[in-house]
């Protein structure tokens, strides 16, 4: 079963604009991870945020986590055409279990 739900399902922006995608989840978590998937490829880990963190940065990525609302957001600043991909949030209920992925947001960045 899907644990996370990303919103929006699809997003189209111009190069240089910021892209924001959201993830809502159902059960309590220890951490939340974001992955990127380019067309026809496997998923690549982007960033992990722990439940005791509210915000985390990595290059042009900014992730926030609101455990009271069971939601997270991923912001990509100054988007580039190479950012065109699908983005997934994923959570793990407890140690030793597999990551459960949401349905993803498909981002299209045009030049």
């Amino acid at each position, binding site marked *: 079963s*899907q644990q*996370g739900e990303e919103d929006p399902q699809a997003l189209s922006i111009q190069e240089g604009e910021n892209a924001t995608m959201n993830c809502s989840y159902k059960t309590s978590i*220890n*951490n939340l*991870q974001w*992955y990127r998937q380019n067309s*026809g*490829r*496997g*998923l*690549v*880990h982007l960033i*992990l945020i*722990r439940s005791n963190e509210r915000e985390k940065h990595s290059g042009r990525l900014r992730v926030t986590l609101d455990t009271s609302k069971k939601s997270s957001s991923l912001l990509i600043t100054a988007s580039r055409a190479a950012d065109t991909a699908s983005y*997934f949030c994923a959570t*793990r209920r*407890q*140690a*030793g*279990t*597999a*990551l*459960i*992925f*949401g*349905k*993803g947001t498909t981002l299209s960045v045009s030049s």
Partner: protein
Amino acid sequence: EAGVAQSPRYKIIEKRQSVAFWCNPISGHATLYWYQQILGQGPKLLIQFQNNGVVDDSQLPKDRFSAERLKGVDSTLKIQPAKLEDSAVYLCASSLVGTLNEKLFFGSGTQLSVL
């Protein structure tokens, strides 16, 4: 460091035929996962191995799917007989030991089309 290797890259079969996928995880990674990704959806876990033991196969359709990880390294996933709804990308992933904060490393996947 070499990544997760999967083969074949693409496979087209007719329904009721059998098919097998192979995965070689990153060297030293004890935990191996097979995920099924249907077009437009997120990956769905099929089975998780810790070394050569099964940790979770609760979502594996055991009447037609089987998987093994002999010697705790390579793994194969088999479908027999295949159905139309099995058309998907089959992703293999690995992680070091499967702890709470670990990230997963994915292969490029095998795209299966069942006609």
